[in-house]
């Protein structure tokens, strides 16, 4: 009898402790997740859902009650000439900047990791440096480089006798986008270079040895070994940089040109921002956000599809 009682007690104790450890575990999981989830929901998930939801509303002042208007914002957008121009400019930047940045980054990465120069660490440090600078600092510095009268660019053009090319780079409709693109490439090339160097360091040196025994030149090796072996990394970086262009172009344009001259450097996000905070068209601004988000997602998918290699 006494023995049974003890067994029973032990069992109960075990059950109680099992239950309490389970409760402790659940409590721990909740305590760990809830603060982060609350923060993330309030400032990321909810705002993201809001963009999609409110893009169907007319909402032209903070105090007003938003009015449901279906797809009208989206229809208006494609008759809005300034929006279309801003979309075109964004598209041009999304094309020029990734191509130039990745080409320069790849070439520099393969030079630095394959040529074994003594001072390659120095170049690596220097080239990477712009990618940790504040976009605001970069925007201000480059405004002065392009400055029509005291700028470095025009001064050096004059120095080497190219006086006829001296111009207000940011003030001319034809050059402004290119000027912004050069700044973006200057900012980002080093970052992707460091990524590619890591990738190249991971390629087995035997491939290169075999290729040079076969008499392949450095340039042939670059195209037949480096690029194919880095392909997956290149695909990922294309998507990174398309996203990067969206956020850096916003800051550069709003500080360097304010969309000018004559809206020729307006990008979709600066237009969105102006619609929201200058004109108070919150519904319209969010609809623009939806369109830009979808376009950048489609571009990412497209580049992913285009760069896909058949499994061989």
């Amino acid at each position: 009898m006494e023995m049974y009682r003890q067994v029973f007690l032990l069992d109960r104790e075990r059950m109680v402790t099992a239950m309490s450890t389970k409760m402790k575990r659940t409590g721990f999981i909740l305590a760990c997740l809830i603060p982060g989830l609350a923060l993330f929901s309030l400032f990321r998930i909810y705002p993201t859902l809001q963009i999609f939801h409110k893009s169907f509303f007319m909402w032209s002042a903070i105090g007003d009650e938003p009015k449901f208007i279906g797809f009208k914002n989206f229809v208006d957008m494609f008759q809005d000439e300034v929006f279309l121009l801003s979309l075109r400019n964004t598209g041009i930047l999304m094309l020029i900047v990734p191509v130039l940045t990745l080409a320069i980054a790849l070439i520099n990465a393969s030079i630095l990791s394959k040529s074994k120069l003594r001072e390659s660490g120095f170049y690596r440090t220097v080239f990477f440096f712009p990618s940790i600078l504040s976009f605001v600092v970069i925007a201000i510095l480059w405004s002065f480089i392009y400055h029509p009268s005291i700028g470095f660019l025009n001064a050096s053009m004059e120095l080497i006798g190219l006086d006829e090319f001296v111009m207000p780079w940011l003030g001319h409709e034809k050059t402004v986008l290119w000027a912004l693109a050069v700044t973006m490439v200057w900012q980002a090339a080093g970052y992707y270079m460091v990524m590619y160097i890591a990738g190249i360091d991971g390629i087995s040196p035997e491939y290169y040895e075999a290729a040079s025994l076969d008499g392949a030149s450095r340039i042939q090796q670059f195209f037949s070994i480096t690029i194919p072996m880095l392909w997956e990394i290149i695909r990922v970086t294309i998507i990174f940089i398309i996203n990067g262009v969206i956020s850096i172009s916003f800051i550069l344009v709003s500080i360097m040109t304010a969309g000018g001259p004559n809206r020729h450097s307006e990008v979709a996000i600066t237009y969105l921002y102006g619609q929201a905070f200058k004109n108070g068209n919150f519904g319209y601004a969010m609809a623009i956000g939806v369109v830009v988000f979808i376009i950048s997602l489609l571009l990412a998918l497209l580049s992913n599809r285009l760069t896909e290699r058949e499994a061989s």
Partner: protein
Amino acid sequence: MSGMQFTAASSGTAHTNTSLKSRIGRLLLRVILLAQSLFVIYPLVWNVLASFKTNKEVLLSPWSLPGSLNWDNFVRAFTTAKMGDYMFNSVMVVALSMAITLAVVVPTAYVLARMKFPGRKFLTNVYMAGLFIQGVYVVVPIFLVMNDLHMLDNRFWLSAVYAAGSMAFSVYLLIGFLKSIPREYEEAAMIDGCGYFGTLFRIIVPMARPGIITVVIFSFFDFWNEYVLAMTFISSEHKKTIPVGLSNLFEIQRYATDWGSLFAGLVLVLIPTIVVYSLLQKKLTEGMMLGGLKG
């Protein structure tokens, strides 16, 4: 082809010939790389030089050296341009956001990496999806939320928004890192009666230090340089952070032309970045690979 014929003809000179060719090749590479380095460094050197110049000297030529070291610019940056205030706000916002980030990210990443519970996969995917939602898309709705909850023009809530913005990336990075720590340590700690929280703080956090440091470095640059959200959510002059203060100053100096203090201000923003970069350069590039290449 012609090279091969040449080798066959005179193998003796071929060796010196290729080494000469490779030497010229190297020289050419060096010239290209040095030119690029100059292209990268020049704007920064110019900025530092200009921060010591008088306005007249700035106008004169972009190459000239300053006539004398004009510390006036820095004094004016602090007094009339209020760079000191902006700097204080930036330091405060960076420290606060960093504290919030670590407080929420480390436990979240630990539970998602280690504990099995229903909804874990879903929650992980929610955070991963956050990697694609950049700040610029959601400025407008975040502004409206903050307006409803009376959180605008408040440095604490700005920091909370920063922390929320860096969560997706930091959680992603730390999950990857925590998964590489062997489970035996935790099991031993649990048997020793450490409890869940004890295990997390006394065993896991010290072991995950390299991963946490990577998160700290990346967040530092993000928070210190952030502009769009700070510009939108903070309206009082005395609460602005340094990037916003600088862009305002730039806006004014276009017409007022006290360039010296603007350049001095730019140098002041650069200094902390340069210090952190030179101290932690290796960690930073290593962390980039950790975060970038596994994706």
